[in-house]
């Protein structure tokens, strides 16, 4: 249990620094007529903190400094693509012509915004090979749900009602079975073979006329490009199923491999991973879905389109359309428009060659770290990796050390822990994704630190087991946090017994 008295020494709450009567602002004069709220809706007191602006700014600046972010340190959180978010993205997203629009404005008055959506759709289609694309979904798992609903709608529209089975490899992100289950499908897990690919015998045994499709992440969560990918697609397609591509790992293949060209029917992108938009902490994300020609009529709308090509004198007229057999809206208005502006900016800044170079460097960086750690850690599927790789965070001669201990010890060196205990098929997994935006010097610091921690694991295991030591809080009690789901906003002394 964290000691609350310690936390108060670290940084008081905004309520603790309140002083009665102190004010940070004045309300402007009301520009609408005053009305009285209905009885019962007006409260007598409102115990909000009373603080000067300077103290508010200092409080939140200090809090932000207690945090770890990609702007403060290396963040090799596998499967999350925590690349640097260029600041120009923030500049463009704040341009008044984008930031101050109202989503209900007539489309003739927001041509630039819809034009941006249209171009972004076209670019994402170009690098993925798809025919149709919707920018609606709010994030990755939402994109999955959308894509799976499209697959269901496609089978249903053909009168093929018995296709209720979705195949999920055992290395999949947990969101894949969740999205399928939410769409009313039955999930069948497919094991991986010894090289980390989908086991072909197990797959083919499930390819029958009840097959809705398969959800594949390629490269997969082991950071490996599935060598059986073509055969997997053929086997599923021959049985009448569809291929769902989880685009979480798209950062490995931009400008190199187009999912639609190698057999994928539906794929979601994660703009907050691959296309450098903010990630987590209320991001929000964005999970556009691309589809083949057969599935395009089922996409959620509205989708940006050219209504009139225009000519030498007149610019094109953009508008919003709804596909004919659309599964319906999946998000209010136009998706997370501010995120779309950031992703558009990123693609515009890098260009085609730049995006390809980003993927090449992402893969090179991951392979560099893998090579540097190969002699120190067990790498269960030791192949040339893509943008990330998985190692085992334990040693047979240091049995009391677990992946979690290594993760916590990394925090002492100002490094965010890798994803741990995932994928589930690797014991004590540590999943490392450096991204392309890190320099060789940073990669070396990380590799040196990992090697140093491995040495400590053997010479001074307690140092790892009690880590972190250099953070505002030490080891938190995750078990208690998970077992006692109490989020209280009072301090223990105020709690009524």
């Amino acid at each position, binding site marked *: 249990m964290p000691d609350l008295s310690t936390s108060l020494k670290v940084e008081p709450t905004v309520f603790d620094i309140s002083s009665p009567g102190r004010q940070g602002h004045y309300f402007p004069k009301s520009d609408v007529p005053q009305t009285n709220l209905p009885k019962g809706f007006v409260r007598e007191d409102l115990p909000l903190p009373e603080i000067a602006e300077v103290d508010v700014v200092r409080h939140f600046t200090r809090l932000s400094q207690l945090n770890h972010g990609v702007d403060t340190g290396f963040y090799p959180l596998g499967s999350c693509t925590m690349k640097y978010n260029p600041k120009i993205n923030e500049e463009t997203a704040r341009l008044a012509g984008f930031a101050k629009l109202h989503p209900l404005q007539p489309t003739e008055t927001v041509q630039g915004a819809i034009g941006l959506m249209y171009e972004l759709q076209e670019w994402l289609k170009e690098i993925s090979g798809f025919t149709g694309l919707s920018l609606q979904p709010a994030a990755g798992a939402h994109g999955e749900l959308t894509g799976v609903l499209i697959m269901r709608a496609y089978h249903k529209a053909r009168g093929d009602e018995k296709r209720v089975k979705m195949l999920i490899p055992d290395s999949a992100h947990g969101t894949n079975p969740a999205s399928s289950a939410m769409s009313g499908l039955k999930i069948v897990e497919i094991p991986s073979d010894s090289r980390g690919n989908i086991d072909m015998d197990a797959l083919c045994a499930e390819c029958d006329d009840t097959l809705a499709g398969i959800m594949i992440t390629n490269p997969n969560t082991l950071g490996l490009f599935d060598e059986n990918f073509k055969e997997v697609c053929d086997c599923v397609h021959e049985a009448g199923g569809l291929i769902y591509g989880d685009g979480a790992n798209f950062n490995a293949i931009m400008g190199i491999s187009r999912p639609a060209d190698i057999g994928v029917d539906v794929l979601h992108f994660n703009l907050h991973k691959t296309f450098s938009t903010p990630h987590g902490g209320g991001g929000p994300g964005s999970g556009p879905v691309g589809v083949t020609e057969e599935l395009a009529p089922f996409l959620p709308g509205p989708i940006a389109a050219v209504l009139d090509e225009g000519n030498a004198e007149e610019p094109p007229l953009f508008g919003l359309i709804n596909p004919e057999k659309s599964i319906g809206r999946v998000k209010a208005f136009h998706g997370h428009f501010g995120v779309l502006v950031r992703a558009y900016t990123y693609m515009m800044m890098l260009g085609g060659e730049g995006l390809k170079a980003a993927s090449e460097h992402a893969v090179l960086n991951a392979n560099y770290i893998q090579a540097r750690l190969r002699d120190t850690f067990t790498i269960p599927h030791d192949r040339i990796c893509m943008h990330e790789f998985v190692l085992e965070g334990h040693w047979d001669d240091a049995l009391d050390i677990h992946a979690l201990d290594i993760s916590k010890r990394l925090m002492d060196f100002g490094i965010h822990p890798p994803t741990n*205990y995932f994928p589930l098929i690797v*014991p004590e997994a540590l999943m490392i994704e450096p991204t392309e935006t890190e320099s060789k010097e940073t990669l070396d610091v990380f590799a040196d630190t990992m090697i140093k921690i491995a040495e400590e694991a053997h010479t001074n295991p307690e140092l790892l087991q009690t880590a972190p030591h250099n953070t505002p809080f030490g080891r938190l009690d*995750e*078990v208690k946090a*998970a*077992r006692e789901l109490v989020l209280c906003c009072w301090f223990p002394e105020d709690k009524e017994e």
Partner: protein
Amino acid sequence: MNFPKELKYTENDEWVRVEGDEGTVGITDYAQDQLSDIVFVEFLVDVGETFDKGDTFATVESVKAAADVYMPVSGEVVAINEDLPDAPEQVNSDPYGEAWMIKIKVSDASELSDLLDAAGIENLERDH
């Protein structure tokens, strides 16, 4: 790792204690050790329902992972350990005792012979 001699086991680390035509089912010491601290146990079945061998009857969750628990043999559920969801830590502290999960009426006794004995599960080839 502790595998009591009188129990039978599946390769997925469920155990069964057979008494007459009734079997008590839980997860092994090895399973709880691999999952680490169990924080959540949920039963997906009710007393009186009948299931096939291999059907999921419960989900256990630790701070590391979630895992399904499967029927070791086919049968009817005759009792559920209703106290376990409120004390999931018992799966760690007493996997073969307090942390029993369900009791079943075995519908096909011949399925019991497919299960492993203590020596069988101890020698089971594991990834880790």
